[in-house]
């Protein structure tokens, strides 16, 4: 497609400037050159390439909806879940863990593999 200037309908002032452009360009002042650029183009390269603040809205929105997910969890705990079973108490868990180690549960890569039987503690 043929090239089209950004400003198509020139004012009288702009038409006079386009006439002046046909003469020597060193006769043009800096403001006139800028005006000629603005007639031809909508934005400068700097304006065209500049970043936006869009990431703030996006990230803020993402975090907001992740927060909503947490609120759903709170609702579930309050209105839906029953009490935590007694098998999750500290005493039960420690007894359960010892029993699993005594039985040598998952000795290759699992829980028993993580326990140091000589020092009687978890491996570092």
């Amino acid at each position: 497609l043929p090239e089209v200037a950004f400003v198509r309908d020139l004012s009288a002032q702009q038409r006079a400037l386009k006439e002046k452009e046909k003469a020597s360009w060193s006769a043009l002042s800096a403001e006139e050159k800028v005006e000629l650029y603005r007639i031809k183009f909508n934005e400068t390269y700097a304006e065209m390439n500049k970043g936006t603040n869009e990431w703030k809205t996006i990230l803020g929105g993402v975090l907001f909806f992740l927060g909503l997910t947490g609120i759903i969890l709170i609702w579930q705990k309050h209105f839906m879940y029953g009490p935590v079973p007694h098998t999750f108490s500290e005493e039960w868990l420690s007894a359960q863990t010892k029993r699993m180690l005594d039985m040598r549960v998952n000795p290759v890569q699992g829980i028993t593999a993580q326990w140091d039987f000589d020092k009687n503690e978890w491996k570092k």
Partner: protein
Amino acid sequence: MFPLARAAQSLVARGIQHTAVRGAHRKHEPTFHDKYGTMVLLGGASMFTAVWSYVFTSLNVEWGISPVGRVTPSEWRG
């Protein structure tokens, strides 16, 4: 992360360009992101931290974390 770095650099370029083009007859209208972006970001972040810090500390949800390194075994026989 790359668009983040690009936006940060362009903000510097935009500042320089604004000082250079003093007679700019075009005022680039601030977008929604310019007006409210920071507020949305901070609001979302604070809401997120508030909700999830409550969930992870005070809500008494059983997360089922591994006993390895955490639980001290105690006698079960008897």
